[in-house]
């Protein structure tokens, strides 16, 4: 999604803005630009990467400025459509993230009043509205302009001759970084972490006036002190630390993520969530809601929750759930979102709350929108995830879900203790997968030449097949489909041939025999079969290639299998020379519906 940065202080703004923009590149973008104010405002923008902009850019003198990375929605990627946008006189510059629903109407009104528009964007109405309402106070003009707008926004506004920045947000992320005689504005923390680790998180409808020496937050008509949070993770974690790609670094961090999560949650006397309260309201079912990779975590959560808690569990895609007619009261809703800013998921939380449900959010970002509107929150301890393809955050979600279900379950203490022992073994089992990548990269070389790949699994490993396919398609651009193994014969069989390799995830549980049968059916259609399994002679005989994973209790096999598939996707994408950390058309945090 779009990214916003702003700087005001005693240093030159240009290098800081460009550097901050680079740190927002993970969000995905097609164009970028900056505006710096001195006596007037100078804007430079284009449909290029930040490094290219930096090369082309002449020196813009000034100690206050804003910057933007754009991910096109209204109007294609081009120089005129890139942000920042200006008013008629070129005195006001605005960077915006979000969508203004009534912009056509406002634009026509402004044109009738004599304003001249140059771009196709919705954003361009904002500087013109501010120009229209400006009567000496920039913040008042911004407030009046926002009053006319319907939709979502995070904006930052720069005006010539005004020694301040004005920012505001509604349904889009925006934070203030508090420095020493300088302050920062950004869509996300990594953008400014190099300069300060003190951050103020803004609420919806906040309007903020930032000078080098002060941050004034106007909330519900009164001025409040924004509470500065200290960010505990560091720029170090936001760097690659020797690895070629963030994705590989993050894959390798997973043993530590599992261990950190276990240390954080399993050894405390305090319950993970207020389960008594959940029981008191008479919860009869669970609803797990998420998008993308987090949805696959939800599907695995459904299996273990039904197994261990013995109540019905629905796992739903948040964007679809938002169009369902009704929600269920007396449902414990578990909402899973890495960024805590996923627009569809946030909308679903709001609907659930309106329906009277208790909402538990599992998110990786402290202070994110999800963490502020849910009833209860569990933070995953994955640290910042830079690669667009989610890996370690998925693992952390799984560990939290497993532990949540285990503590909520009524299985006897001995079984729980034995499961906990298995859970404690996981970091090392995952490390074993990471230490033995020879076979995985061999399979990757083999698969890299194909254009269609199927993933099949059964039971608790069906979501793993979906996740394996998602990882592969998003970073290698190979057409990949995940199927429940039993569903293949209901259609997809028609596509199988020697050009369509099938990756079969075989677990040593009650699905084993059926998977064996499925593999034989696939072989009969001449498709090459790659099996992902524990050591198993029967599989060795029928599969063309075998990736062996360490032996684990089958309940925990999704974790180990997922890591193998993440590595497989990574090596295939590398073999195909893809842009692994920033795949085309994708963004880390999806803040539009």
């Amino acid at each position: 999604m779009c990214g916003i940065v702003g700087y005001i202080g005693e240093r030159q703004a240009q290098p800081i803005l460009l550097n901050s923009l680079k740190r927002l590149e993970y969000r995905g973008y097609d164009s970028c630009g900056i505006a710096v104010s001195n006596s007037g405002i100078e804007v430079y923008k284009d449909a290029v990467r930040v490094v290219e902009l930096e090369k082309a850019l002449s020196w813009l003198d000034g100690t206050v400025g804003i910057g933007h990375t754009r991910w096109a929605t209204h109007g294609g990627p081009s120089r005129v459509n890139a942000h920042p946008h200006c008013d008629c006189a070129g005195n006001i510059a605005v960077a915006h993230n979000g969508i203004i629903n009534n912009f056509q109407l406002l634009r026509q009104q402004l044109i009738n009043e004599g304003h001249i528009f140059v771009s196709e964007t919705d954003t361009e109405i904002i500087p013109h509205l501010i120009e229209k309402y400006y009567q000496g106070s920039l913040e008042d003009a911004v407030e009046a302009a926002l009053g006319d707008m319907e939709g979502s926004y995070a904006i930052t506004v720069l005006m010539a001759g005004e020694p301040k920045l004005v920012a505001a947000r509604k349904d889009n992320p925006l934070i203030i970084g508090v420095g020493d005689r300088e302050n920062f504005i950004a869509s996300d923390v990594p953008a400014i972490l190099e300069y300060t680790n003190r951050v103020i998180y803004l609420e919806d409808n906040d309007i903020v006036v930032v000078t080098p020496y002060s941050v004034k937050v106007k909330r519900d008509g009164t001025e409040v002190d924004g509470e500065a949070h200290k960010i505990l993770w560091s720029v170090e974690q936001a760097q690659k630390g020797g690895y070629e790609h963030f994705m590989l670094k993050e894959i390798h961090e997973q043993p530590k993520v599992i261990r950190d999560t276990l240390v954080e949650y399993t050894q405390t006397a305090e319950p993970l969530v207020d389960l008594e309260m959940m029981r008191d309201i008479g919860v009869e079912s669970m609803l797990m809601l998420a998008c993308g990779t987090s949805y696959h975590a939800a599907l695995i959560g459904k299996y273990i929750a039904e197994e261990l808690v013995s109540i019905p569990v629905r796992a739903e895609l948040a964007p679809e759930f938002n169009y369902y007619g009704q929600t269920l009261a007396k449902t414990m809703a578990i909402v899973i979102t890495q960024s805590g800013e996923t627009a569809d998921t946030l909308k679903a939380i709001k609907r659930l709350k309106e329906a009277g449900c208790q909402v538990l959010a599992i998110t990786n970002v402290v202070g994110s929108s999800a963490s502020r509107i849910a009833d209860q929150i569990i933070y995953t301890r994955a640290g910042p995830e830079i690669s667009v393809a989610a890996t370690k955050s998925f693992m952390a979600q799984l560990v939290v879900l497993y532990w949540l279900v285990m503590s909520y379950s009524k299985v006897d203490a001995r079984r729980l203790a034995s499961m906990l022992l298995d859970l404690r073994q996981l970091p090392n089992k995952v490390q074993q997968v990471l230490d033995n990548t020879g076979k995985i990269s061999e399979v990757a070389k083999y698969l890299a030449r194909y254009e269609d790949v199927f993933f099949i699994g059964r039971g608790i490993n069906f979501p793993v097949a979906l996740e394996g396919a998602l990882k592969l398609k998003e970073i290698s651009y190979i057409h990949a489909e995940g199927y429940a193994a039993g569903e293949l014969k209901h259609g997809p069989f028609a596509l199988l041939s020697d050009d369509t390799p099938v990756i079969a995830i075989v677990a040593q549980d009650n699905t084993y025999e059926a998977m064996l049968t499925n593999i034989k059916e696939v072989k009969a259609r001449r498709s090459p079969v790659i099996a992902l399994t524990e050591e198993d002679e029967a599989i060795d005989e029928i599969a063309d290639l075998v990736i062996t994973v360490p032996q684990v209790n089958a309940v925990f096999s999704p974790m180990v299998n997922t890591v193998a598939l993440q590595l497989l996707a990574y090596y295939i994408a590398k073999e195909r020379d893809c842009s692994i950390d920033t795949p085309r058309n994708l963004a880390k945090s999806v803040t539009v519906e």
Partner: protein
Amino acid sequence: MKQAVILAAGEGQRLRPFTVTKPKVTLSIAGKPILSYVIESLAQNGIRNIVLVVGYRKEQVFDYIGSGEQFGVSITYITQERRLGTAHALAQAKGVTENEFLVLPGDNLIEADTIAQFMAVKPNAVLVKRVDNPVRYGVVTIRNKIVQDIVEKPEEAKSNMINTGVYAFTTEIFNFVEAELDIPHVLNNMIAQGYPIKAQEASGAWLDVVYPWDILSLNEAVLHQIPANLGGTIETGVSLKGEVAVGKGTVIRSNSYVAGPVVIGNGCDIGPSVCILPATSIGDNVVISPFSNIENSVIGNDVSIGPGCSIQDSVIDKGCVIKGHFMALSDQAEVRVGDEHCLVNVGAMLGEGCSLGNSVVAQPGVIVGNYSQVQALKLISGRLPDRSLVF
């Protein structure tokens, strides 16, 4: 001098099975890889620009050290694709060094004070150490503080000064390293051409890890410097003696007895009634069940130890699952490493991810390969290869 090149590409074959999946520099000593102590000693001397030459299993180094920010240093990684020797490793750093820099092995313990003394000597110089049994090292002959020659593993030592592998060089060294594979040969060539190489004797501790049981002596040396620190939960009735460091989220249950120096990591579940004696390190996420006692041992991350086990002078690598009544008691043993036969007092050396059934008895000096499985009631001895199955 503001820069150091640390050679961290080595495998450490004599340390198998512990070095099958990780490089020697990441062997865990008192809960941290050896390499981190080297970096800390440098940082204490204001050397914050560090070039790490990595190779074998370099990902493990990345995972532990990252960008170096946790140590307050900045790290530049250089990869040595083929492990041909220390001079070849150093040659990889050509072009990224300043004019003067230190070179250190990443797998030796060196005190900050020793580095401070050595930094006072101008390049070219080598740090030497007086030892009792020099023949397994490079023996250095010195006259008037100038090195005369270095002889690797001589049959008969001409002095008891050995080469620690710590050097001070200028970029001039890069004119010599490419012709040779190991640094001592490079120095001998330079001496032959009339370059003076100074020798500085290390007064403080300098410890090398060559054999698996050396992990225990390094561990003990480091443990004596770690102050007591109690994170986690200590239940009533637990006795803590001496310097005991306990990580966050760890629970030590009633009636346990812990005599320092001992370091226990994060998220462990220990006891009730467990006895931990000096000098023991326990990793993160470790479970130790009732009535077990552990002495002078190193226990890795994610290890689970069942009830009633006795473990002495042993190294249990990460992820081992040991059921009840495992006996790994120490005694004098003759252990074969490569062609060498060593006589040592040692318990058991268990590679990572091993699974032991109830009441397994380890003969002193046993070395068990990674991911081995041993059924209940077995006696294990000698050297078991990786993935052994003992039925």
